[in-house]
């Protein structure tokens, strides 16, 4: 382990990995609360499988971030010891689960974005990030199939499911813009050609999600108000509760071995 200060490029990649890792971690945390509460046992399995993939991504990304930023913090130190203001996840990832349709709408937006963005990052200049983005892209591609399938099923199912799925899209979509916003680090990496910014997949994401939504006989809300702040650590009040729950055991036993 070198004690030299991280280079500027490494710090930018650390920041980039932290954003991705926090999204994966917080979304996994949300999905975990579905387990034993899903509409079918099969969905208990499906949602836990998705959450498990996301925890895997979070572990790899947070470890990488802790190495690249020069602090040497481990995945757990980053996950369990930061306060809410230091988390860089989008508000989308922390949106409360709502009903199954809200969760599917959130999955639809996130999995399409993650698949495209990870695929882009598989070509980035940070070899470790590139490798894990390549793996993650394949996994979230399955999450996308799951979300697409349920969006269409609910959209074309019953009157009630159609109404709920439309409500879900209406609720979630204003939170999607934040996925594509860059901070300074991401903008620098993109400008230097070192790592593509998420905005580069925005058009493809729009087309792909619109295609699914239209197959489902639903519509996307008109662009209007959109939420942001998560990437700067300005989270929802519910996020405080999510974090308190997630970090409780670790913080309760300082110096513990797990």
């Amino acid at each position, binding site marked *: 382990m070198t004690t030299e200060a991280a280079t500027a490029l490494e710090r930018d990649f650390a920041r980039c990995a932290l954003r991705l890792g926090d999204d994966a971690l917080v979304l996994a945390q949300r999905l975990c609360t579905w387990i034993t509460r899903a509409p079918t046992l*099969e969905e208990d*399995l499906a949602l836990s499988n998705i959450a498990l993939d996301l925890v895997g991504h979070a572990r790899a990304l947070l470890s990488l971030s802790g190495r690249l930023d020069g602090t040497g913090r481990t995945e757990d130190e980053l996950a369990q010891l930061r306060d809410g203001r230091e988390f860089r996840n989008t508000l989308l990832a922390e949106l409360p689960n709502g009903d199954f349709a809200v969760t599917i709408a959130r999955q639809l937006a996130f999995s399409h974005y993650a698949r495209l963005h990870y695929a882009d990052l598989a070509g980035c200049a940070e070899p470790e990030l590139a490798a894990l983005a390549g793996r993650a892209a394949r996994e979230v591609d399955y999450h996308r199939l799951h979300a697409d399938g349920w969006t269409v099923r609910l959209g074309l199912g019953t009157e009630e499911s159609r109404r709920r799925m439309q409500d879900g899209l209406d609720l979630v979509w204003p939170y999607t813009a934040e996925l594509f916003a860059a901070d300074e680090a991401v903008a620098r990496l993109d400008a230097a050609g070192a790592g593509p910014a998420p905005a580069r997949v925005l058009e493809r994401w729009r087309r792909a999600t619109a295609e699914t939504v239209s197959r489902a006989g639903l519509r996307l809300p008109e662009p209007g108000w959109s939420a942001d702040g998560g990437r700067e650590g300005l989270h929802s009040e519910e996020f405080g509760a999510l974090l308190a729950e997630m970090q409780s055991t670790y913080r309760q036993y300082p110096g513990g071995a797990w």
Partner: protein
Amino acid sequence: MSAGPVSWEVFLCPRRGLSHSHVGSVRAADVRLAQAAARDLFARRGRPQSLWVVRSQDVHAVLPDEKDPYFAAADGKPFRRPGHFTALGAVGAGLSADADADADEDADGSGVSDDH
């Protein structure tokens, strides 16, 4: 109470060169959900080469009552079995025809064809 989603039989091919085998069944409303359920249930460990789901009602077993007329003819024909004849080159080499050892090897005889 509704009868619930229909039943599907799941066939898994673990890797290239092997045939699909029946691994169990799932219930699902449609074919994509059946594939998803089968994936989550039977392919969490290992990475299979291929996965089939077939509606259970499309599997037509020989009726239990007809098993005798169907299968009894297989008995009493030892000359169909590989170990029945003197092995090639075995004369004088002291090899005995150890018939029944390998005879049952294919007893599982997959009824499902490999190609599609």
